[in-house]
């Protein structure tokens, strides 16, 4: 299909401000009379606050007050409180905030506060708390239990409690040694098909343990915020991935009517899942400002961002997979112990889902437990569950392929999800899948067959490795609202409540509206980033879902505007509405395009007519946020507003496949990535440059997951050893290829009006998996069974020092 805007590059409206330094992030804002707040954080991994003596600090000139857990609604584990008191569960957990006239005074005053703590036992490795008699991260247990309980006001957890799951020494020992822990208790499990019968038909069976280590999001913009109150309204400069969804939840955290919250967030310096929804610290910023009745800026340092900025969950697991004679996966049995950190959640179910969708086993069983540890809270991070599973699964599937005598690519081809694919516990279907085509496209770009035949050794101490990996994440929701206004100036104001998390999707999705209206992009104005600008109820931004979800809502808003334009033209110029078309910022008679109205004229007519044409009347089914915005816009032009009620069946998938070639130095364990090729299976490509950004960025994240990033804790004291960026560590220019080759499959999903789906998360999973596969290939199929694989591990393996998953240790060296 030929499009006017879809599939074309454009310059998103915020790019120039980013290169000139004019783009403002939450900490860039100032307000007269603004004061500065800093945090005092816990030096203990587990315990409670017995007493706080802030008298010396409060007596200092310029100190304005402190804010503690007593100033917030009570919160019980496993809710992650903004400020801890009775349940300290990780080092770095905020205990109190102190405000002062200057940042420097606040910093100095914090040092004067004396706190008496009571210590409690702590644990950094989930298997240590799983063992009978082992320490628990909370006084009342080690695992999440879901119940129907209400969330404490001002907290983000709901319907949860802490329970306890323990395994016997024999079970833990078996698991540590890579065997099935017979008779063990699990927190969640599902199965489909006859697993035993399918395994019996498999010629090749591989059984392996695995470990993935969690790591911090380390969004480059620390989650600082600024808030002030005027005339009963809170003005909040924050940093979130989502906008209107965040607005609604933040107003609940601040215990105010949404109409009394102005949320300003034009730019967000990275989120990667950690800023999908408001985080606990935002409650402190807003409420402390109200308590002091002063504008207040909460400054979060890099170290604090490590502590409270969320992290990926880790896994310790066991996997058994069987291949049939034709290379198809017959059965999978998987056990996953998730490290949920403090107050987080596990993503083992998503990990299992990844296996199910990418390899389509005839039968599968999943069993899992999410266990808390006294490490930083874990939350959604780019493809949570799916991506870490992709990274450890790829070399295991490679081993199965080699053992069965198959080409590694052939196994992926044989099992690739097709349009009729089913997956997961419910064996649900997909909106579409062109993964077989994506595999072929990427393989041809990479020249797999040619490279497989090339020599392995490149120099005395250097070897080549090639690998491939696939990523998946669900990539689309529905039911959100679209909103636009055609002004009497003839411009099309495209309103969106989508956040600006750096992918430019907030603008890209609006091109679906411009496409339907057949108007020039130059006459469109993107309205976003400030709730006072009248934004619609838009999707949360996580899970790669923005492109699918919001091209739909943009499209329905445009359809509503087109209907109104045609009705106005028919009323004004005669004939029926269906006799008219839109294009070139006009509505005109299809049979005689000289007869028509400009958008500016039609907008004035809409104002004159009133009613639904200019927003005095609006659909009943739109969200309260959208209704509020339409109310504020009524009478200002022609309003297009609608809820997305377009048909949707099955899961909209985002897929990606990557191929990697490395050259590994066996003396140092270092490797260069000499080729990185990846293809996205994300439906129609809406914004080629944006897709390139997503695929390249995801690839870099994949390289980080496979080779660099991890938590390291001292198990004796619970101290984190790598809170800084250079220690954690995100890849730099020199850790990634000088060039990355990416493309889109560009085949339309039938359930999106422009064919689009998202792909942000699979872009990482495929990269991590392909690199892990290449490392294993370079070492003749050796499995490390863990991520990340670091040079010291490689050197020790080459020296036959026998490094492998050993006892499935995580979070430690």
């Amino acid at each position, binding site marked *: 299909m030929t499009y006017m805007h879809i599939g074309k590059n454009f310059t998103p409206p915020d790019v120039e401000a980013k*290169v000139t330094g004019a783009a403002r992030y939450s900490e860039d804002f100032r307000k007269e009379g603004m004061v500065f707040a800093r945090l005092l954080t816990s030096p203990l991994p587990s315990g409670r606050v017995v007493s706080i003596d802030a008298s010396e600090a409060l007596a200092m000139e310029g100190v304005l007050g402190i804010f503690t857990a007593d100033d917030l609604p009570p919160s019980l584990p496993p809710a992650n409180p903004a400020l801890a008191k009775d349940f300290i569960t990780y080092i770095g957990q905020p205990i109190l905030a102190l405000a002062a006239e200057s940042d420097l005074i606040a910093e100095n005053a914090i040092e004067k506060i004396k706190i008496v703590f009571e210590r409690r036992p702590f644990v950094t490795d989930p298997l240590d708390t799983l063992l009978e008699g082992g320490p628990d991260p909370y006084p009342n247990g080690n695992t999440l239990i879901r119940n129907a309980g209400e969330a404490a006001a001002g907290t983000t957890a709901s319907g949860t409690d802490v329970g306890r799951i323990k395994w016997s020494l024999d079970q833990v020992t078996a698991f540590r040694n890579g065997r099935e822990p017979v008779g063990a208790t699990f927190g969640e499990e599902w199965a489909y098909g006859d697993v035993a019968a399918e395994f019996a038909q498999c010629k090749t069976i591989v059984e392996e343990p695995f470990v993935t280590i969690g790591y911090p999001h380390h969004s*480059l913009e620390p989650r600082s915020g600024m808030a002030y109150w005027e005339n009963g309204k809170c003005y909040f400069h924050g940093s979130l991935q989502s906008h209107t969804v965040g607005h609604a939840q933040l107003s609940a955290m601040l215990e105010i009517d949404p109409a009394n919250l102005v949320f300003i967030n034009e*730019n967000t310096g990275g989120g990667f899942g950690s800023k999908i929804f408001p985080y606990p610290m935002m409650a402190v910023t807003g409420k402390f400002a109200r308590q002091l009745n002063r504008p207040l800026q909460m400054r979060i340092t*890099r170290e604090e961002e490590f502590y409270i900025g969320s992290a990926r969950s880790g896994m310790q697991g066991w996997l058994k997979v069987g291949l049939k004679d034709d290379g198809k996966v017959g059965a999978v049995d998987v056990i996953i112990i998730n490290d949920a950190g403090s107050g987080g959640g596990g993503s083992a179910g998503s990990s299992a889902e990844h296996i199910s969708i990418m390899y389509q086993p005839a039968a599968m069983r999943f069993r899992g437990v999410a266990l808390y540890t006294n490490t930083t809270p874990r939350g959604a991070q780019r493809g949570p569950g799916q991506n870490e599973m992709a990274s450890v699964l790829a070399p295991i599937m490679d081993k199965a392929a080699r053992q069965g005598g198959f080409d590694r690519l052939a196994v992926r081809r044989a099992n690739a999800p097709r349009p009729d694919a089913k997956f997961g516990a419910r064996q649900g279907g997909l909106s579409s899948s062109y993964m077989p085509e994506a595999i072929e496209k990427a393989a041809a770009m990479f020249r797999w067959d040619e490279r497989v035949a090339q020599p392995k050794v490149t120099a005395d101490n250097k070897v080549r490795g090639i690998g491939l990996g696939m990523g998946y994440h669900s990539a689309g929701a529905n039911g959100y609202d679209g909103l636009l206004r055609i002004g009497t100036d003839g411009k099309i104001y495209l309103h969106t409540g989508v956040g600006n998390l750096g992918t430019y999707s907030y603008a890209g999705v609006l091109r679906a509206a411009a496409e339907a209206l057949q108007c020039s992009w130059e006459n469109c104005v993107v309205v976003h980033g400030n709730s006072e600008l009248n934004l619609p109820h838009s999707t949360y931004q996580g899970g790669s879902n923005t492109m699918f979800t919001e091209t739909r809502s943009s499209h329905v808003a445009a359809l509503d505007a087109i209907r109104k334009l045609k009705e106005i033209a028919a009323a004004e110029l005669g004939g029926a509405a269906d006799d008219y078309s839109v294009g070139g910022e006009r509505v005109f008679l299809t049979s005689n395009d000289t007869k028509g109205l400009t958008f500016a004229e039609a907008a004035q007519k809409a104002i004159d007519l009133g009613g639904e044409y200019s927003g005095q009347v609006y659909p009943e089914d739109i969200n309260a946020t959208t209704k509020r915005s339409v109310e504020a816009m009524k009478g200002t032009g022609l309003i297009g507003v609608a809820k997305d009620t377009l048909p949707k069946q099955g899961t909209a998938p985002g897929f990606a496949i990557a191929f990697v070639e490395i050259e590994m130095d066996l003396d140092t364990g270092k490797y260069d990535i000499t080729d990185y090729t990846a293809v996205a299976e994300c439906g129609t490509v809406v914004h080629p440059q944006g897709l390139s*950004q997503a695929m390249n960025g995801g*690839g870099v994240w994949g390289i980080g997951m496979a080779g660099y990033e991890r938590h390291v804790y001292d198990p004796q004291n619970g101290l984190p050893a790598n809170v800084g960026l250079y220690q954690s560590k995100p*890849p730099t220019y*020199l850790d990634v290829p000088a060039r990355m080759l990416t493309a889109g499959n560009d085949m339309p999903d039938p359930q999106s009006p422009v064919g689009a789906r998202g792909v942000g998360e699979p872009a990482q999973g495929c990269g991590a998996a392909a690199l892990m596969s290449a490392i294993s290939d370079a070492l003749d199929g050796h499995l490390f069974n863990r991520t990340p694989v670091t040079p010291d591990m490689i050197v020790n393996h080459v020296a036959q020092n026998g490094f492998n998953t050993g006892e499935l240790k995580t979070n430690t060296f």
Partner: protein
Amino acid sequence: MASAASNPAGGVERLVSINVNGRVRRVDVLPQETLAHTLRYKLGLTGAKVACNRGECGACTVLIDDVNYYACSTLTHNVKDRAVLTVEGLRAEDGTLHPVQAAFIQELSPACGFCTSGQVMSAVALLKANPRPTRQEAREAMSGNLCRCGAYDHYLNGVMRASGQLS
């Protein structure tokens, strides 16, 4: 006349003049104050970002006498007699964007944008010293600037375009 503020006993002079973006700015500077702090919180130049505040990421990169420095790790007192250039000072007087800025727009180099000012300034410094770098030279020269979004490929494309090597 000396005052306590301008020259405390045994200390350094606090009221100093610094040349920022071609303008001499007078500012009250504490002895331990970093250039990032002075620029952002006293001169209102918030283009340089404080992401780590300890020389790890490069988001605060500025040019001092045409060489790129981390402003978070530079004491303001050390730049009194030197020319500081921030991202806000790159545009020509007629408002024309610097070639690096224009190229970064064309290549959609920024993602979230929080590191972008630093990336721009490192690229400007590189091209002043080496107007036609190879991609490998650019990669090495830019390696002190972290991009958590992983937009390295797009930034390198921007550098190559700004140096006239990408059409």
